[in-house]
C-alpha cells in the first residue's frame, strides 16, 4: 500500500493512497478502536499542577526538608531530652558543650598545682633539653625567682601563667582531649557508677539550664508565633480586603483611607508599646482571675505570646488586605460573578464561594512569606527584651542573654542565631518556590 502522505512531513494526501482504500477501511469503528481514541490522561487540577512544579524545584524542596527537620527538633526534641527548659541543674552551671573525663581533670589539677622552685627549674631544664637547648644559669635563676615569688607556673618563654591561660597551656601540654557533650563532675561520677546521663550537647547557662532544650523551646516559640501570626494576618486581611474590594465606591474609599493611615504608622515603635502593654495587662488579668477558663487559657499560651499576636494582627494585615483587594477588584468583573449575582447570590456568598477561592494562590503565597517576617519581628522584640519573658526562651532572647558572656561562651549565641537564620532562610526559599509554583507569571 502506498504511503498516506505525498512525502515525509507533507500534509497533502497521496492520490494513490486514496485509490487503494478498500471497503474494510470504511467500516464503523468497533468499541476497542473507539476506546483507543480517547486520551487516557486525567485533566490536571490547579493544585496538582502547582505541586508538580513545586516538586521539580530542588531549592524549595530542600528548604521544605530543612523546615521539617527544624520542626522535629523543636516539637519532638523536648520530649526526648530529659531536661526541661526552666529546670536548674544544680552543679551543672556554665558547662561548655564539651567535657574532660574525670581522670584528665585529676591530671590537670595536679599539673596546675604550683610547683616548688627546684621542681620548676628541673622541669624547665628537661623541656629545654628536649628542644635541644640548654638553659643559661641566668635563665634558671629567673625561673627560680619567679616560682619562689608567686608560686606560679611559667611557660617556655618565662611568662607567668594563671587562671584560664594556665589551664589552656596545661591542657595543650598534657595532650588532654575534650570529649563531645557537656557533663558536670557530678554527672560524670554518676556515669562512672553505671547510670545513664543525657549530655548537655549545647552546654548550659549560668543557672545550669540545658541550652539545647532551651534552643528547642525557643525554636518552637518562633515557629508558633510565625505560623499563627501569619494566619491571623491572613484572616483579618482577607476579610477586610475582600469587603473593601467587592463593595467598591464610598465604602472602599473610606476603608482604603484607614489602610493608608495604618500603613504609614511606624509599626515597630507602636508594636514595641503594644506588646509591652498587652503583656502586662494580660499578666494582671491572669493573676486576678485564677481558675477562670479564659484566664487559664491565656496563662497556658503565655501572656507575652498573645500580646505579640495582637500587636502583629493589629498592624500587619494591611499588606495582605491590599493584595486581596487588588485581586478581588480584578475578579469581580468576571462573567461568573455576574451570573451568580443574577441568580440572587448574596455578597457574602459570592466572596466566599467565587472570589476568594480564585485568588487562593496569591493568598497562600502571601501568607507563607508572612511567616518569616513574623519570626523576624518576634526575635527582634525578644532580643530587645520586650518579647517572651523569662523563664520561657525564644531564639531572640537567648541571643540577647548570650551577649554578656560573648567572648567566653560564644556558642550560646551561635546555636540560636544559626537556627534562627536557617529557619528564616528556609521559609523564604520555600515561599519563593511556592510563588513560582502557584503563580508562574510572577516568576522573576
Amino acid at each position, binding site marked *: 500500500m502506498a504511503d498516506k502522505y505525498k512525502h515525509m512531513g507533507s500534509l497533502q494526501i497521496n492520490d494513490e493512497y486514496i485509490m487503494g482504500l478498500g471497503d474494510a477501511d470504511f467500516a464503523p469503528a468497533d468499541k476497542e478502536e473507539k476506546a483507543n481514541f480517547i486520551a487516557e490522561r486525567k485533566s490536571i487540577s490547579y493544585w496538582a499542577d502547582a505541586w508538580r512544579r513545586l516538586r521539580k524545584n530542588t531549592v524549595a524542596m530542600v528548604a521544605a526538608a530543612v523546615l521539617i527537620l527544624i520542626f522535629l527538633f523543636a516539637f519532638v526534641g523536648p520530649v526526648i531530652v530529659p531536661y526541661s527548659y526552666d529546670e536548674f541543674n544544680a552543679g551543672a552551671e556554665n558547662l561548655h558543650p564539651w567535657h574532660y573525663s574525670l581522670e584528665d581533670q585529676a591530671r590537670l589539677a595536679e599539673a596546675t598545682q604550683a610547683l616548688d622552685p627546684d621542681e620548676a627549674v628541673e622541669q624547665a631544664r628537661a623541656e629545654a633539653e628536649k628542644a635541644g637547648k640548654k638553659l643559661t644559669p641566668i635563665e634558671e635563676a629567673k625561673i627560680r625567682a619567679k616560682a619562689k615569688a608567686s608560686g606560679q607556673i611559667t611557660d617556655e618563654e618565662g611568662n607567668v601563667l594563671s587562671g584560664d591561660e594556665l589551664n589552656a597551656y596545661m591542657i595543650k601540654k598534657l595532650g588532654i582531649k575534650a570529649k563531645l557533650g557537656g557533663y558536670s563532675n557530678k554527672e560524670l561520677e554518676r556515669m562512672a557508677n553505671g547510670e545513664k546521663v543525657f549530655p548537655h550537647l549545647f552546654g548550659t547557662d549560668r543557672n545550669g539550664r540545658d541550652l539545647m532544650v532551651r534552643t528547642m523551646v525557643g525554636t518552637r516559640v518562633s515557629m508558633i508565633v510565625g505560623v499563627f501570626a501569619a494566619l491571623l494576618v491572613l484572616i483579618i486581611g482577607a476579610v477586610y480586603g475582600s469587603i473593601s474590594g467587592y463593595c467598591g465606591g464610598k465604602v472602599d474609599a473610606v476603608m482604603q483611607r484607614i489602610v493608608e493611615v495604618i500603613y504609614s504608622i511606624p509599626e*515597630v515603635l507602636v508594636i514595641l*508599646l503594644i506588646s*509591652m*502593654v498587652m503583656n502586662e495587662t494580660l499578666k494582671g488579668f491572669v493573676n486576678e482571675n485564677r481558675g477562670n477558663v479564659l484566664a487559664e487559657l491565656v496563662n497556658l499560651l503565655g501572656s507575652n505570646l498573645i500580646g505579640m499576636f495582637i500587636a502583629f494582627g493589629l498592624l500587619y494585615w494591611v499588606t495582605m488586605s491590599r493584595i486581596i483587594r487588588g485581586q478581588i477588584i480584578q475578579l469581580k468583573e468576571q462573567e461568573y460573578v455576574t451570573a451568580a449575582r443574577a441568580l440572587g447570590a448574596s455578597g457574602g456568598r459570592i466572596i466566599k464561594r467565587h472570589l476568594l477561592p480564585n485568588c487562593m494562590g496569591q493568598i497562600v503565597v502571601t501568607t507563607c512569606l508572612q511567616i518569616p517576617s513574623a519570626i523576624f519581628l518576634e526575635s527582634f522584640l525578644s532580643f*530587645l527584651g520586650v518579647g517572651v519573658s523569662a523563664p520561657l526562651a525564644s531564639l531572640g532572647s537567648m541571643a540577647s542573654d548570650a551577649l554578656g558572656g560573648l567572648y567566653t561562651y560564644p556558642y550560646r549565641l551561635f546555636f540560636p*542565631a544559626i537556627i534562627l*537564620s536557617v529557619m528564616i532562610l528556609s521559609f523564604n526559599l520555600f515561599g519563593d518556590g511556592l510563588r513560582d509554583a502557584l503563580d508562574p507569571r510572577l516568576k522573576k
Partner: protein
Amino acid sequence: MAKYVVKRVLMALLTILLVACITFFLMHAIPGNPWLSDKSPSPEVIAALNAKHGLDKPLHIQLGIYLKNLLHLDMGTSIKMQKNYPVINIIKEMFPVSAKIGIIALLWAVAVGVPLGCIAAYNRGKPVDSVLRIVCTVGISMPSFVTATLLLFTLCGGLAQVFPTMFDGSWQSYVLPCFSLGFYPMCYISRQSRAAMLDAINQEYIKTARAKGLKTNKIIFKHALRNALIPVITYLGPQVAFTLSGGFVVEKVFNIPGLGRYFVQAIPNRDYPVIMGTTIFLATFIVLMNLVVDLLYKLVDPRINLAKGGK
C-alpha cells in the same frame, strides 16, 4: 501636583497625631507607675508625685495639655531616667549619633546594593549572578542582631581584634555598627535593583538604543539604570523606618548611646514624657521621610501621576 502635596502633608500630620494619641493611651494602659521601682513609696508619696507631674488629672485632659505644649516644642522633662532634664535636650543629644549611623548605613547600602544588582542582572545566569543571589538571600534571612553580634564576636576580640570593643566615637567604632545595620538593606536593594534592571533591559527602548549602535556602557547607565532606579527609590522610604528600628538592636549590641537604645529603655522604666517625646519624634521623622521619598518619586519619573491615585 500642589493638591497632591497638600493632601499628603495633611495625611502625614494626621498620622503623627494618631501615633501621639495611640502612644499616650497605650503608655498609660501599662499597669504600674513610674515610682514603683524606687523604694516602694507610700500611697501619699505617690499621690504627691502624681500631682507634681500632672498625672492625677483625667487622661484626656493630660493628652490635651501635652499636645498644646507640643505645639510650642515643649516635650516636658524626664521624670525618671534623667530627672528634670528636658526631653527635647535628650533628643538633641542622642539623635545625631543614631542618625549618623543610620545615614552611613543607608548610603553604603545604596552605593553597593545598586551596582551589585546591576552586575547580577547584566550577568544573568552566570556564576557571578548565582553567587550574588546566594549572598543576598542569606543576607535578608539574617536579623540585624545576628549580623551585629557575629561581627562583634569575630572582629572585636573573639577571633581578631580589628575594631574597638567599646564605642568611643572614633571612626573605627562606627565601622561595624554601620556595616551590620546596612547589610540587610544592601541585600534587599541589590535584589530589587536586579529585578528592576532585568525588567528594564528587556524593554523596547533598549532594543532601539542597541539598534542605534550605542555603546553597552551608555545603554546600561543612561537608559536602563535610570529607569531601574525608580523602584529602588520607592523602597527607600520604608527603609528609613527599618534602619531606625534596626538601630535599636545595633545600638544595644555595640553599646552606642543613641536614641533608639534610650527609647527601648524608657518603656520598662515608664518614663512617660521620654516615651512620648521619642516616639513622636521618631514617628515624625519616619513619616516625613516617606513623604519626601514619595514626592521625589514623582520628580524622578514624570510619567507617574499620583494625584489620580497611583500609576
